[in-house]
């Protein structure tokens, strides 16, 4: 070994080398449990998904055959489930992330003002994010309930609605309502992250701009906002990936219904896996989602590299 060759004298005297070599062994031994878990419960299932996607496994009937790209073909020609789900995924992801970002930015700017009690406000605004998704979904289902739900009661009493709306059960409102609930639960994450970035904006810059006659609005647009680029970029990419792949929110609010009106690709994978037991169909959808994720990942790397070079 290289170490033995480099330090023959010390090795012969037997001072340090055996110990060092022993610790190299530890390096791999220590890594082993983590690597085994990842191989067994992340890598292997993904490999499995690729294999299943070219077979015709269905839990209702035994056996499996190689069917080539048939599953992909039948997905891509499916105008009743697949293409609407693609569209809903886009709306769900763009609507959620867009709403979360705007609300997060607005609330961060607000809580960055020198207000009394802002420490408490910051703590309180974080609360929705600490609520588990199941509980957020339960609570909002109750608020939006058509007969006694407080949301409808208030909107009707204020004269905004003529009569109660079945927000989660109506074809035209189901998807928008799930987006609304997701925004409520997720925006505090943006608030806290953007607030941290705002506080890192050099005070001297803002003061200098102020002396030069820039008003608060100009300072925000010209100085604060450009400083938030890096954080915003990371926040948006991460949330695009998380939101696109999220099943819980929609499943717990509408199960993708009514009549698939809020069905996304992610809920469709889940439905095919555990409701209609079309395992191979679910796998082929998963493979397409992996491809999309890889494209987003590659785009992210490309853009962040360009950003680093540009700065």
């Amino acid at each position: 070994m290289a170490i033995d060759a480099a330090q023959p004298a010390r090795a012969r005297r037997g001072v340090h080398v055996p110990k060092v070599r022993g610790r190299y062994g530890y390096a791999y031994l220590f890594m082993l449990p983590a690597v085994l878990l990842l191989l067994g419960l992340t890598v292997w299932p993904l490999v499995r998904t690729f294999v299943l996607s070219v077979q015709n496994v269905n839990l209702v009937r035994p056996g499996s055959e190689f069917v080539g790209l048939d599953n992909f073909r039948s997905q891509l020609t499916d105008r009743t489930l697949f293409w609407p789900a693609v569209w809903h995924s886009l709306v769900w992801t763009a609507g959620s992330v867009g709403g979360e970002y705007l609300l997060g930015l607005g609330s961060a700017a607000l809580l960055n003002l020198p207000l009394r009690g802002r420490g408490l406000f910051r703590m309180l605004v974080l609360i929705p994010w600490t609520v588990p998704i199941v509980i957020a979904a339960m609570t909002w289902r109750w608020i939006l309930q058509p007969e006694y739900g407080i949301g409808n009661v208030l909107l009707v009493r204020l004269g905004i609605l003529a009569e109660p709306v079945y927000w989660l059960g109506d074809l035209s409102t189901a998807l928008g309502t799930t987006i609304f609930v997701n925004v409520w639960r997720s925006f505090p994450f943006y608030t806290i992250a953007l607030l941290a970035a705002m506080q890192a904006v050099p005070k001297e810059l803002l003061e200098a701009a102020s002396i030069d006659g820039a008003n608060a609005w100009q300072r925000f647009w010209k100085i604060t906002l450009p400083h938030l680029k890096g954080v915003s970029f990371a926040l948006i990419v991460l949330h695009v990936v998380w939101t696109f792949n999220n099943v819980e929110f929609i499943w717990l609010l509408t199960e993708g219904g009514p009549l698939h009106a809020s069905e996304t690709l992610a809920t469709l994978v889940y439905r095919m896996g555990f409701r209609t037991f079309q395992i191979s169909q679910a796998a082929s959808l998963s493979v397409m989602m992996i491809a999309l994720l890889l494209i987003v990942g590659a785009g992210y790397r490309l853009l962040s590299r360009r950003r680093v070079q540009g700065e």
Partner: protein
Amino acid sequence: MPPSTRWRRSWPTLLAYASVVVLLAYALFPVFWMVSTAVKPTNEIRTADPTFIPTQLSGEHFALVLWKSNFLVYVRNSLLVATTVTAATLVVSTLAGYSFSRFQRLPGITAAGVGMIVGQLVPGVLLVVPLYITMKNLGLLDSLWSLILTYTTFSVPLSTLMLKGFFDQVPVEVEEAAELDGCPSWQVVWRIALPLAVPGLMTTALYAFVQSWNEFLFGYTFISQDDLRTLTPGLADFIGIWTVDWGALMAAASLAVLPVTVAYLYLQRYLISGIATGATKG
């Protein structure tokens, strides 16, 4: 100062406070409404004219949840799973994080690190179907072990990366000095590096615990036997069982959310630094 000037100076401030009130009302109203529904009697709930502040407090919904449902069984299962996952995550990621911090340049170690980062990004929905099949083949469906294994795997990558960061801050010289003083090398981790990384261990433990406490999808899928259900899927089942008993549903939700929220708020400075570095999964 003439009143008009004072007014002009203070109206942006007033506007700011008003906006804060609106923001907090939006953020907190659902939580308030959940608790309010839970503590009032049913006749104040199922009415077209609900009361905001209950005129009468009632423990009936809490009694139903605690004594006449499997709520406490779900809590026990969740506690069992979350504590085991936390312990397993700490052991596995401490070892991996240490190795990752100290032996980065060894062949294969860096590859494992990159694998961790990629593994962290694989979304659950892509794993739930194949993992279900794996668990079925292993005979682990309807066993808490399926969840323990899965959740540990999900929390190990980020925990390893966090702990690597903490071990990076422990100088190698301290360990070398201990070794020269005759401390056996395998004990160096245990006796020297680990005690110095305690804050990191706390953060990791919190992350692993909350992650598995809140997880829904796998718990919902892998476990179908009611007395093995964990808390989040158990709550989702209540929606089906108590369809119109919103008082009971909100009582269960309140009981389930309060400990997590209190823990979060208590540990918020760790949490916020985690969010600020963009590390915490939402």
